[in-house]
């Protein structure tokens, strides 16, 4: 018998498995959805988002920080910035949650296959790019050189830094880290450049014509990086940007996430820089 279609409004039940603090206001939440969610979640493409429900607070769009496990477990990297995320940060393991999705368009993986990929993350922008990075590393032979450039305000705000260093040590990717400033004494296990992400990119030699760049960070970062990447020879339709909007419904109806004539929840959140030209409010 054909199952009735799951309503687009109704989240699947889920619960919090564990949380791991990554910085003073950001944590990684591992979430177990009910088995019914698995069919939809298993279609996840890095860059897509899910709608996470925190009962009594509401719902927020979050781009998972890794691919769902075969059991459907999700890793969501969330900063405490508002009503919903505040409550999420107070929850204990076992707390009930809800999840809908995935929604939107992720990174165009089939098109990127065989090409070098340059990932540029600023601050919390590492979260959606981490799921792409994990996919690339797990399918290492399917892609060209993989490079991650990651900038944070200061060392203590750099998320996943030990994990990223370990991944780089395995030889699967090149890793460049930079911080805007370093007020703290750094221990020997951590080294990074001092300066902004565009500075890091300036000194970088790569095969720009063949490369796909994936960028995620605060809006001002996009503006500098897009022009630098284009000037360096990366085609605008190969500059992939993961944009943030406050999607309420996720299915193209609430109209909060319009960018020009596109909707972030259906056409994005991953857009090509070439598709955003001439849209003043895009970045």
């Amino acid at each position, binding site marked *: 018998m054909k199952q009735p*279609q799951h*309503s*687009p*409004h*109704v*989240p699947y*039940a889920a*619960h919090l498995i564990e949380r791991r603090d990554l910085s003073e206001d950001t944590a990684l939440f591992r979430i177990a959805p009910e088995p019914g969610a698995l069919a939809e979640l298993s279609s996840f493409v890095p860059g897509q988002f899910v709608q996470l*429900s925190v*009962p*009594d*607070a*509401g*719902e927020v769009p979050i781009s998972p920080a890794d691919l769902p496990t075969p059991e459907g477990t999700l890793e969501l990297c969330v*900063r405490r*910035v*508002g009503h919903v*995320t505040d409550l999420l940060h107070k929850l204990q393991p076992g707390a*009930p949650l*809800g999840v809908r999705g995935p929604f939107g368009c992720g990174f165009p993986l089939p098109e990127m296959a065989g090409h070098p990929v340059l990932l540029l993350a600023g601050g919390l922008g590492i979260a959606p790019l981490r799921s792409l990075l994990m996919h690339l590393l797990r399918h290492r032979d399917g892609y060209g050189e993989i490079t991650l450039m990651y900038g944070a305000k200061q060392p203590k705000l750099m998320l996943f830094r030990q994990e990223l260093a370990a991944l780089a040590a395995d030889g699967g990717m090149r890793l460049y880290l930079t911080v805007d400033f370093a007020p703290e004494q750094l221990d020997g296990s951590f080294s990074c450049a001092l300066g902004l992400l565009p500075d890091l990119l300036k000194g970088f030699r790569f095969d720009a014509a063949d490369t796909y760049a994936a960028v995620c960070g*605060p*809006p001002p970062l996009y503006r500098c990086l897009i022009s630098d990447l284009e000037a360096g020879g990366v085609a605008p339709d190969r500059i992939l940007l993961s944009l*943030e*909007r*406050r999607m*309420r*419904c996720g*299915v*193209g*109806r*609430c*109209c*909060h996430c*319009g960018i*020009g*004539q*596109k*909707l972030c929840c*259906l*056409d994005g959140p991953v857009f090509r820089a070439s598709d955003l030209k001439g849209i*003043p*409010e895009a970045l």
Partner: protein
Amino acid sequence: MANNFLKISRLDQFLETLRLFGELHAPTVSESGVHRFSPLEDPDELHLDYRRTQIPPKKYLFPFREEILHYGGGGYREGHSSAGDLVIFGVHSCDLEGIAYLDRVFLADRPDPGYAARRSRLTLVGIACEPDDFCFCTAATESASCDLFLSAGQDGYHITSYSARGSALLSAADHLLEERAAQPSPAISGPCYPAQDPELRFSDHPLWQKFASTCVSCGACSVCCPTCYCFDVREYPTLSGGGTRIREWDNCLFATHGEVAGANFRPDRLDRLRYRFLHKYCGFTPLQGMSSCVGCGRCKEFCPVDIDLRELTVAPEKVEP
């Protein structure tokens, strides 16, 4: 059954027949003098010569506030729609086209359960209108997006059926109808400003600055628009545990509309005005390229600072920045 004619003297009986198909709503006037669609208790309250209601009939399909989910005990459940059968009588073509547009939004792809439930129980009876200075529709004669449509003739109405339900209504009212050949609809004499290449109008046109300098972001234009459907979603816990998730009309002219954590993508009034009218005239995915302005004239009539968007949509040479 063609050429159905209802004499005006039998209108009250016809309305009684419509009641067999659901609760009857029609244009009436409130105590404060505002035209509105409301339950029709007494046929004497009917105001069929109205120009436009303040709030369009979208309120029946897309209520101002609606419980969409209940939660508690570890899970979320669909909110129960309590929609009963409803007949709306006396809807103008522009509002019928507005509903047809909302159908595209809420019934396509993954249909919205609440909207779909209400829509399936809704009977629409349209009526021809007489445009006034605020109207700017392009096809005011007769909309087929209804079950029945009435157009005025000598001492009564010619009735056309556009659906199986419409035919059922006519059968039920058969004893009230007589056969009379329909007259061709008279040409609309009111002003008409079809949009001319609207995408051009959404560049850095100086008119946007002019509008933004007077707009007070009250949001009246989108509240009264038959095709505005932005909504916000909120969650309200109860003291006994569990709670409700509601959705309610939102307004893209409000400063909060473009907010994300720590930023706002439409901080200025000009951005928000343009966002609204870009959506209205050019459409968002998946209805990109389709204008959803039905020309009802409400946004102009109810704007407290007299912004007239038709200035943007008339031919470029007529625009005086």
